[in-house]
């Protein structure tokens, strides 16, 4: 399994148009040898769950800066469950105040990365969540 590229979905959840971070992450993951399916802006939870299904990705990465995370991320987790994809780890990057991080983790999110996170840390973290996913 290890010799095949990890497939990651990178999606902009919600309506904001700030995709600088998402694009940097996409490129960093590519440079780390992963295959990154990039969906672009304005993705709804249902669209992301469908893309995760079609693309058979190992991990879903969500970028959100609009402040709507408390509404949209739990909905995304529901949609993934509906598609029988609850096993796919979901990681989140963007502007999430500390007080909301626990809410998201309770909803089933695997990790939340705030502003200023090193991309090398994100790459490592993805490798780790997939590793543990495979052992489960």
């Amino acid at each position, binding site marked *: 399994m290890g010799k095949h*590229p990890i497939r990651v979905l990178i999606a902009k959840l919600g309506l904001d148009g700030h995709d600088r971070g998402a694009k940097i992450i996409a490129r960093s993951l590519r440079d780390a040898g992963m*295959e990154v399916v990039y969906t672009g802006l*304005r993705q709804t939870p249902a669209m992301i769950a469908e893309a995760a299904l079609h693309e058979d990705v190992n991990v879903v990465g969500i970028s959100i800066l609009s402040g709507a995370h408390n509404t949209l991320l739990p909905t995304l987790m529901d949609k993934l469950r509906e598609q029988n994809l609850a096993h796919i780890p979901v990681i989140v990057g963007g502007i999430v105040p500390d007080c909301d991080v626990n809410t998201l983790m309770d909803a089933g999110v695997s990790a939340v990365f705030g502003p200023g996170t090193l991309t090398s840390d994100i790459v490592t973290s993805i490798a780790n969540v997939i590793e543990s996913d495979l052992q489960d």
Partner: protein
Amino acid sequence: MSLAKKIISGDRRALARVLTLVENGDAHSKDILAELHPYGGKAHFVGVTGAPGVGKSSLVNFLAQSLRVLGDTVGVLAVDPSSPFGSGAILGDRVRMADLTGDDGIYIRSMASRGAVGGLAYATGAAADVLDAAGFNYVIIETVGVGQSGVEISNHVHTTIVLVASGAGDDVQAIKSGILETADILVVNKADLPGAEHVLADMRSNVVMNPSPAPSDHHAKSKQFDGSDLAWRVPLLSTVARSGDGVDLLIKSLLQHWEYLENSAEIDNRRRTRIRAILESLLRNRLYTRFMEDISRKQFDALLESIVLRDIDPYSAAARLIEEKYKASCLDKA
């Protein structure tokens, strides 16, 4: 239920899983493909090719929507290049296919080229077979879009749509690359931009000079039917893929081309061409892999060193390796 059975019963997750196995050349994929094989052979394979930025994904977006309106189901394979400096890739074609979400009759899969040249991935052919067996009426393959070498697609599909955009010298590139000769349908995209008229005129003269692609063993398109000489005339269309203008005529040409293929029995040629391409590629890859597994690493490295020292040239070295291996296997049998 086996994965293959699940696919045939419409299980999308099984389909996605199997495409991954096929893409990774997983040991199980051979059996699954074998189980699926009898269910294939019904889909119309359509290739969409042209230089990067020409608007392939946007066009696929509208093509798929229009085919859905006609009641057909559509599977899409969108190939993007892998990084030349590693195994990674950014697969961004879904960005322009946002209209296609939320519809069970459409399945989109992004594929990285994983080192293959020619605009497709090694597994694209097999992946298309899987989608065919899964029951999609159309399987649309969008190539990487490497202008010069993007001709491989025509061996993999029944209908090849070649896109050219106005501006930036794309037209000249396309003419030089020989990609035009592979077109069953020729489309000038971004027809609303300045310079489109010029490109159309260029293309028109090109198509007039080549009323149908040059006949070859696997591209013999001059078959007659209805008792008259009805070679396929490559239609030259103009579209604005961004807004969908002109897609209706493209759909019409696509349907006409299928009709032509069936009526002229050209469809059998195309199917044969496609299977031959897949078979040859499989043999090439398998034989090479096996050969490399069978010869001793030590022997290979020693030869390599001799070439570096100019004791032997690479051509004789290769010949010697094959010769020795071949003899050895004959002895084995004896």
